[in-house]
């Protein structure tokens, strides 16, 4: 039996060490996020971990509204410079000030005990 990578566990281990990693196929060059055992579409299984540049652009945004406006928060989809899109939030700016097209960069923060990938204005 070939050893199978453990996509989510390995990604979280990297994040805990302060690295935002994504996958890349050696044969197709395509980048993959979220982590998995094959590249979607091609089925290429020669995925390796590479450090993401962290550069991204806000692709879509919503603000989840709470009774106390101070508790409202943004939820975004960002496009990584490498191609993949993912859900995150933009910290360091008013929830209402996040705009589609905004340049952002990755930051790893703590959500309680857990490391969490967020983005801040570039």
């Amino acid at each position, binding site marked *: 039996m070939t050893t199978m990578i453990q996509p989510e566990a390995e990604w979280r281990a990297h994040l805990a060490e302060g690295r935002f990693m994504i996958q890349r196929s050696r044969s197709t060059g395509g980048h993959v996020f979220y982590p998995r055992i094959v590249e979607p579409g091609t089925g290429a299984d020669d995925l390796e971990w590479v450090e993401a540049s962290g550069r991204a652009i806000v692709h879509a*945004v*919503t603000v*989840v509204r709470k009774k106390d406006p101070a508790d409202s928060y943004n*939820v975004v989809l960002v496009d990584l410079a490498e191609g993949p899109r993912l859900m995150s939030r933009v910290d360091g700016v008013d929830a209402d000030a996040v705009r589609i*097209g905004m340049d952002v960069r990755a930051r790893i923060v703590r959500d309680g005990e857990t490391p969490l990938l967020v983005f801040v204005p570039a």
Partner: protein
Amino acid sequence: MSIARGFPSRSTAIVGAATYGIGRCPGVSAVDMAARAGMLALADAGLTLSDVDALYTSAPYEALGGMELAEYLGLTPKVVDCNRTGGSAFEVYVQQAALALEAGLIDCALIAYGSNPASNPPLSVGMTRQSPWEAPYRPLAPISSYALAASRHMHLYGTTRSQLAEVAVAARRWAQLNPEAAMRDPLGIDEVLSARMVSDPLTVRDCCLFNDGAAAVVMVRADRAKDCARRPVEVLGAAHAVTHREISSMPDLTVTGAAISGPQAFAQAGVGPADIDLAMLYDAFTITPILFLEDLGFCPKGEGGRFVADGAIGPGGRLAVNTNGGGLSCVHPGMYGLFLLVEAVRQLRGEAGERQVQNAELAVAHGNGGVLSSEATVVLARG
């Protein structure tokens, strides 16, 4: 009869249709409701339980709901399905039942669903897990996913919140003509816009109801349909496309799988959007009919907001859309897709009362599941 373009067009028909318990249906279980709607649909067709040899359901809280309903009704079906494509499951069932009927595998399909989350809140929502890649950011499921798609549509095409509100107002105006609809109070654009914001740009009035309801339809081959009690509704086309599970993996936030399933279903049917008299478009949120009008070809991509403006999809408008009042104002018990089919049948039979679309001959019912994830289109004709 042959299967052209992947579907046995006009080989099968819907011969029975029913709803039950719309709004509040306390004191019973979901399977009680599905069974009741199923029996009503069989009676509508002039058929009995012993005629049924295929059962299609999507139980709201029970993963093994197909077996549950078969047991409840005392059936030993040749085909049982309880698929998990969310609200689109029932349009998928029309496709699957038509193929099984055409192949001679089955002779009579019952598609039934019931759910009463308003009267009987589930103790736990155990059917799906939150994505580990999205949950930490606390999106409201599923509202924020649709809100993200709406934000992108507004950004790219200039779609406005007022245009979104037009969808809710048109649904309410149709609901006012439907005695069965749950929400029949007047509703204006300003009320939608000033309602409580939930997840920008969607207010609570941009979101579907969460109430009780059951529905069922019965399908047989076209030759047998002639002997049933009611005027048959022919199945002209049915196609399905799944593009993703979570919104972060949707290939294009402004183009749904309806852009695949719609043209396929229309090609099978040999008709196009311009021929359609009634469009039943799953309205989980006000953005969804706008996307489906575009993807099904009723207007160009990006023009959906302008298409629905000025009451264009309400009573007396340019296209009759969601004449029962939709998920926004009639019924949405979690998975709404079967109600689209029942309303299309009622309109094509000419039994829709005050809301009847004149000379309705062709209808499209488009189901949506997940977060714009699963799209299934059915084209129906007056028999």
